[in-house]
């Protein structure tokens, strides 16, 4: 996984690209701690460049959701498509957080 972040006022945006897998858990944990420390109200995970995700990746998103509840910020997944979208549909992530599919409709 490659990661870049933006922080402006109450808005935090994380751009995730490549594949989100188990070995990224350390980096992902740092990201969550960074968001918690930023004390923002909204956080967008931009997944438009994310090509694949495994169950550990889904687990990390669940941990992000847990943290958003304990630290008081809203989580939004944006630009999901391809395999990532299929997996999120399949595991009904829309019940857990706001999921916005990629406008291309893939």
């Amino acid at each position: 996984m490659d990661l870049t972040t933006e922080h402006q006022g109450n808005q935090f945006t994380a751009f995730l690209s490549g594949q989100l897998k188990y070995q990224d858990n350390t980096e992902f944990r740092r990201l969550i701690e960074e968001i918690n420390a930023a004390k923002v109200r909204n956080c967008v995970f931009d997944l438009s460049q994310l090509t694949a995700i495994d169950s550990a990746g889904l687990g990390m998103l669940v941990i992000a959701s847990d943290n958003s509840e304990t630290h008081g910020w809203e989580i939004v997944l944006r630009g999901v498509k391809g395999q990532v979208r299929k997996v999120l549909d399949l595991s009904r992530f829309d019940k857990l957080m706001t999921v916005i599919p990629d406008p291309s409709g893939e």
Partner: protein
Amino acid sequence: MVVSNQAEILEDEDTDVFLFEDEDNDDDALLFAEDLEQDEVLAHPAADPDVDPEDAHSVIQDDAEPLRSVADAASELDERTRLLELSAIQDKSLRFLMGEIEGTSQDVEDTSASLTQRFSEMAVSARDLSQVVQSLSDDVMYVQVNDDRISTQSLAEGLMAGLEDFFKKVIFLSSRGVKMSYTLDDMFKVLEKMQQSIGEIERINKQTNLLALNAKIEAARAGDAGKGFEVVADEVRVLANSVNELSNDLKSQTTQVTEGLEGGYAIIRDIATVDLSDENIETHARLKLMTSGFIAQGKAVTEALDRSTEASQLIERQISSSIVELQFQDRVKQRLEGVNDAIIRMQQLVQEAGPDADAAPEALSPDFRQAVAREIAAVFKLGELRDAYAVQFGLQAEHEGSTSSANASSADDDDIELF
């Protein structure tokens, strides 16, 4: 007076009786009556053996004596004898026809009884069929699970819900696994610090050892006065060595703990990671499609079975209506009985009011009687009926020999019975 009355009756009865015959035959009969009244010699085609080969074979005479036409035979008789003969023929013919009517009525009764029986059986079968189809429809729609009847619809939905639940659990497990590795990361950090601390101990211990060595040298230089210091310095060195051993043990133990935790880390990675590649997702999608296909198929089968049930019920209703309509046979029977009763009454009246029967001995003119009988016999299209009628008038012997060949020929309509 009496004679003319009888003639009227004859005409009326002829018409009545022939109501049960074909129109053409009826016309023949009327023509026949006219022939008699006008006393004319008319060569009826049916009576001429040379003209009609069909008639010829059924009325062949052994002595080859030419058959006489009705007109020929009638010309030899006076009017009274002729009327008596006709009355006798009519009486005999009516008896024969009444027998036929009774027989036919009985046939219709027997046939409709057996039809009713068969239709009743068919109705029962149709009812059984619709029940079987109904239960089959239930079998398709429901699955017996222990003591519960579960509809296939909810079974499939339950399957999908179970699958979704399973997915949720996998994700929950993965997230706990990731959290567990966070905890392990924290423990690795503590272990790292422990190892740093052990290094610090080793560093301090080296200094202590060095200090003890220096103290021993200084004690030796001091001579006897330093003897006590030398003992202390030795003890300090022994102590430093013990600490060194202890820190070595700690070092190897923390290394073992680190290795063990690294193994645990690999195990947790295996637990947390479930392959969600496209193939696995496709498998799930196919399963979903199969399940919905299964539900759709079940519905289609149920609909087909429902239609089948409706069809069976329709058949059952139609058969029931047919059975009701078969009771029409009773009316046919009553009407035929009415006809017979009227004929019987008519005969009684004729006997009471007609000429004295004793004055007309049996067959005053066999020629005339047989000529008329042949004419009437020719009316019957059914060979069986024609033969039976012929026997009544003693014509049997005349064409008995040809009966078997008559069956083989296409002269009569007996073949109809085959259909």
